[in-house]
């Protein structure tokens, strides 16, 4: 059985942080042979929490672990001549290089795409950066909050009486990682047909902006500009408190408004003024009060399961504990256990989607720093063990 649909694809992952490593991890998850190339000091994500047991040990970053599953790992200092030589030898082996350096960095090292593709014409170079390789902001510094702001999403997140609101966590960088994996898979398909590689230029900010599929054309078609939702009269479609948590309800599923009203057990909701989208908007504040009253004493699970039986679109606010214990995720095999040499056995979120011919395999945890130096430099490139010791002493690996 193949390890995945990308079996046989060889990848050097020079990237650091979240977006690039997540891209390379997804490619590894679906079968590619990925070698993560870290500077001798390690990927800075090794210093980012959460840590196993809250111990900020460089091999115990759980964030690093989940961004680098299924990869082997070597160290290499690209800022030395020997490091660059070794890298170019690896480029002959690789189908794909993933990188997240500031635009221009690889060129300054003499390692730009034209040189790399001269060595390996089929090479796909996947570059994931805050603002892309070109344009007036390409040299700007990015951070998660900047991606949301300049990607257009913050302007419509939060409520209109307050400041714009960032998404929780690192959604933009994950998004760019997933998009990077998709673009790379597309480029590999193209390389099969044409024999030629590509330089993929992915801007994290543009990835976020490309989700504005309602709001961008709304302006181009009519001049209308959306903002944040009004704080009152908009509870339908947003979280509402119930007895033991928060729930969310939307229209547009298989259930009619009357069925929703009956489910909520409030006869007043059957009033015709609430029967249309427009009516629910006009009478929004009245509707808010009725909805709050309807759910406040009910339990979230009873509501969640009951709504589903009636084909009502309904959700509950779940936190990390709920998700770690979720029976649906268990049934789908979403979590897998991996044995980490320092941490021990640990359960990790693993499966993005299921593919019938090539079931997901978790083959290895994230690499320890330089774990596969001997395997790669001796086994793949043919250097001697003594050479590898010299490389280490020279600080190249």
């Amino acid at each position, binding site marked *: 059985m193949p390890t995945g649909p990308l079996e046989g694809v060889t990848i050097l992952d020079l990237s650091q942080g979240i977006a690039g490593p997540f891209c390379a991890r997804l490619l590894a998850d679906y079968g590619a042979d990925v070698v993560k190339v870290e500077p001798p000091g390690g990927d800075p994500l090794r210093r980012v929490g959460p840590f196993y047991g809250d111990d900020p040990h460089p091999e115990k970053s759980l964030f690093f672990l989940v961004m680098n599953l299924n990869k082997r790992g070597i160290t290499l200092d690209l800022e030395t001549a020997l490091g660059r030589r070794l890298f170019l030898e690896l480029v002959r082996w690789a189908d794909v290089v993933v990188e997240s350096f500031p635009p221009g960095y690889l060129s300054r090292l003499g390692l730009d795409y034209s040189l790399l593709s001269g060595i390996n014409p089929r090479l796909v170079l996947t570059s994931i950066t805050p603002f892309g390789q070109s*344009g007036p902001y390409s040299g700007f510094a990015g951070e998660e909050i900047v991606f949301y702001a300049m990607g257009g999403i913050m302007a419509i997140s939060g409520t209109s009486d307050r400041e714009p609101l960032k998404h929780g966590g690192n959604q933009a960088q994950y998004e760019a990682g997933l998009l990077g994996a998709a673009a790379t898979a597309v480029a590999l398909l193209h390389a099969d047909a044409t024999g030629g590689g590509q330089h993929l230029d992915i801007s994290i900010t543009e990835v976020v902006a490309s989700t504005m599929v309602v709001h961008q054309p709304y302006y181009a078609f009519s001049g209308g500009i959306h903002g944040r939702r009004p704080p009152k009269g908009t509870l339908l479609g947003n979280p509402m408190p119930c007895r033991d948590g928060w729930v969310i309800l939307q229209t547009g599923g298989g259930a009619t408004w009357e069925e929703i009203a009956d489910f909520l057990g409030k006869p007043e909701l059957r009033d015709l003024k609430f029967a249309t989208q427009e009516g629910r908007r006009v009478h929004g504040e009245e509707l808010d009060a009725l909805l709050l009253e309807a759910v406040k004493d009910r339990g979230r699970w009873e509501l969640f399961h009951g709504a589903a039986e009636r084909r009502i679109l309904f959700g509950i606010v779940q936190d990390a504990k709920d998700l770690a214990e979720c029976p649906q995720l268990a049934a789908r095999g979403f979590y897998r256990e991996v044995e980490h040499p320092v941490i021990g056995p640990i359960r990790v979120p693993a499966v993005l989607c299921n593919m019938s011919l090539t079931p997901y395999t978790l083959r290895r945890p994230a690499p320890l720093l330089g774990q596969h130096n001997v395997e790669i430099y001796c086994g793949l490139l043919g250097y001697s063990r003594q050479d590898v010791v010299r490389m280490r002493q020279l600080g190249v690996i």
Partner: protein
Amino acid sequence: MTQRLPFSGVRVLDSTYVFALPYTGALLADLGAEVIKIEGPGRMDVTRGGVWSGAFPENDPGEDWWNRSSTYNLLNRGKKSLTLDLSTPRGRALFAELVKVSDVVMENYTPRVMKGWGLDYPNLRRLRPDIIMVSNTGYGHGDGPYSHYPAQATTQEATHGHCAVTGYIGGPPSKAGQSFVDFLASWTALFAIAAALRLRQRTGQGQWIDIGMYQCGVMFLSEFLMDYIANGRVAGRLGNRHPSRAPQGVYPARGKDQWIVLSVGDDEQWRALCALMGRPTLASDPRFADSLSRLKNHAALDDIIAQWTSQHDRYDLMHRLQAVGIPAGPVLNARDLHLDPHYRARGFLEDVAYPPERGIGKRPLIGRPWKASGVPARIQGPAPRLGEHNAEVLLGLLGLPPEEVRGLEEAGIIAQAPRDAHLEPRPPAEEMVRMGILAEWDPLYRQRLGI
């Protein structure tokens, strides 16, 4: 240089609705696939006129409003449109004929629907052994307890864990501004289809790609899951702050609803910020002198920064902050995405020209969020009118005799106008601004866009 595109020669049946997989189909069309969108004459895509349909050109629904909504037109550019009533045996038989001549089938019905129609993967595979089928559902197929639950992104955002970590500090859990998880499913599908086609080329085998949006959303919270799994910790909401960088936030800039975000990562950036604000002594103020103190005294710091930013233009602030290495940028809205010099320089939006009889003119639409050297991907053409390619597909591709196609039309199995569709009236733009549905209406948009 060859003009071949990555999906040239690939035919995709796109029997999908709303955002996620329709967007995948649009990207596949940009990249050279022949994408045939299939809708029921009585079950057209809700983006043609429902809640998420967006706006009509110049707010005028026109005669054929179902072909004119902005969201539909973005998500279905470059496709062919076939109507086919899959609730009829004849409709399903024609679908089966199309499967035989296609490479990829995409659908996003709840799990029992395709099975009930005899069009699930085992059946499609009998029709075409190397078919690649993509199913996108809320919770994924199988025998899980929620597998048959209906879902859309709005409510899933809560269930997949996003709302729990999003929201103002001290406030309720909050949704993001748009249909977040749909895009994760959309790109997952693009990824899996490309990978599956690659494998098919090598092995001759197709497969079934079973996407549960729930999983995609949960995956994007991996660090929170790990903190619970390893340390038993459930994270709270941080608003616009960062767990270790400080100050970080969104601050008012000069003008109405104008904002700048900034994020200070170290002492050097902090000193640079103090210098920019004209308050160099603040750098050594013990309340703010080191990172941990800045985190602790964040609120006091926010007031000081807001005082400074509110006197300056948001773009001016961006340039000054970036010049000293501080990650910063203005909060851009939908209009800004059209006018910002960086987006323009990179060609983020692509102009789509409609034939004159469509009455839509020319509109810029979001292209693809990546650039590929040497690959002439672009939006290949406008979204089709409902049923526009009925004849082309049924006569040309399937070779049906013309009288049979006429019979299908008479029987209502195909159509060029929706059955029983009505459009809820909408208030004028100015009224929507008053009601808070829109933040602003810009009457000069056509002039600004040059359309």
